[in-house]
């Protein structure tokens, strides 16, 4: 078979359109290498085919191009990743691609995981220690704070007591300064139970209110109480029992319209209707 016959046998068309068998293909390629005119004829048919195809176009969907480019972008990114790891030839020589791909990154991620685990344990321990430290500090501050609150309230209480005392004294002072106030000194009677006893009655000549200032009287027993009496024409009039309280300079007694003298006796607790003259401590004439 000469070359012209071969060219016109239909083998060119079979080969170009992909219908030739493998042995036909190999033979055709061998022939092409030997006969430039065969290549020329093949080229001519390819041109015909291409021109025909270009005249018969159908448009694929519009977004297909961007889809294809998105897909190949992903592939080319992966390829860069391989070549960055080392020369591609080297990788292919030494290992199947799968293992090269995974091994270094696996080692890196293992190291990373370990580092992260260790770091988190250390952080946890630090956190526990700090918690403990701050808890102790908190407890310490809390007790100190409680102590401060307590002493503050004590101080406030003292302050209040002092103010009350001050007010009491001021009150007493005002009473004593009052020009209408009649002062009746009551010393111990000559044969009294306690010669050192001494009290003073302040008697408002306008309102007839009676105040008593106890300078000195012996402390009564639990069941006894001192009682003040006003004496009018030799008859005793109850002027009230005396509530002895520390820090109180003057005690207000019952209102007494008229009296010649005042006296104090020691009576049973709550007072008596008539004075026990055996226990007469002090007396003073108006």
């Amino acid at each position, binding site marked *: 078979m000469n070359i012209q016959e071969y060219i016109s046998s*239909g083998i060119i068309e079979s080969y170009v*359109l992909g219908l030739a068998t493998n042995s036909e293909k190999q033979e055709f390629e061998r022939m092409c290498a030997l006969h430039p005119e065969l290549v020329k004829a093949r080229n001519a048919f390819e041109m015909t085919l*291409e021109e*025909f*195809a270009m005249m018969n*176009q159908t448009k694929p969907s519009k977004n297909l191009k961007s889809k294809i480019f998105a897909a190949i972008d992903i592939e080319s990114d992966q390829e860069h990743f391989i070549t960055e790891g080392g020369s591609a030839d080297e990788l292919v020589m030494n290992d199947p691609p799968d293992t090269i791909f995974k091994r270094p990154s696996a080692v890196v991620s293992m190291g990373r995981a370990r580092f992260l685990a260790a770091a988190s344990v250390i952080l946890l321990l630090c956190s526990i220690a700090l918690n403990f430290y701050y808890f102790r500090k908190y407890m310490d501050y809390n007790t100190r704070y409680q102590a401060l609150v307590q002493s503050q309230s004590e101080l406030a209480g003292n302050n209040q007591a002092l103010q009350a005392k001050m007010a009491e004294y001021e009150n007493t002072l005002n009473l004593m300064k009052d020009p209408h106030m009649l002062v009746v000194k009551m010393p111990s009677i000559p044969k009294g139970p306690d010669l050192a006893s001494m009290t003073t009655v302040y008697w408002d000549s306008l309102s007839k209110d009676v105040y008593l200032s106890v300078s000195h009287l012996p402390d009564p027993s639990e069941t006894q109480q001192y009682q003040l009496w006003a004496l009018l024409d030799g008859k005793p009039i109850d002027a009230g029992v005396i509530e002895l309280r520390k820090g109180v300079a003057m005690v207000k007694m019952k209102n007494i319209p008229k009296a010649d003298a005042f006296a104090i006796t020691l009576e049973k607790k709550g007072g008596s209707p008539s004075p026990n003259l055996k226990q007469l401590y002090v007396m003073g004439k108006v």
Partner: protein
Amino acid sequence: MSLLKSRDDKAFGYLYDNYSGSLFTIVSQIVNDMELANDVLQEVFINIWRKIESYDASKGRLFTWMLNIARNASIDTLRSKSYQNSQKNQSLSDTTEFSSAPGKTNQDIDIIGFKKVMERLKKEHRVLIDLAYFKGYTHEEISEIEDLPLGTVKTRIRNALLQLREYLK
């Protein structure tokens, strides 16, 4: 060409703009379904991009190379299991109006390109080209299907191709 081999995006974009239309025609004529043809064409261009380094200009033109990739991908799709299943489902609903829609688009493709030129072939030639080129059967398979001697199949296909060549001009 060297830009293509180094996988330059612009060069590849140019390739797509130039050849997607003619390759889409052949793909859709083989798979007979516009939507499926889009998927196949995507695969075709990704394959072109992947294999561009293996293209050997001494064995033929770039378009010939791409056309064969497109034809092979289309025939692979025809033979894939998922496609065969979808065909079965379609044949069940063949009588409904819905399934007539793709048929209409197929007719549009059929009136251009090789399919139109094939109309001019004798029927005995046309059937063989359809089986060999559009269905991808080997000569042996065709000789069984058509109950013809292998030699006859070969001769008829060669003759049909030579005739087609004249029609393409």
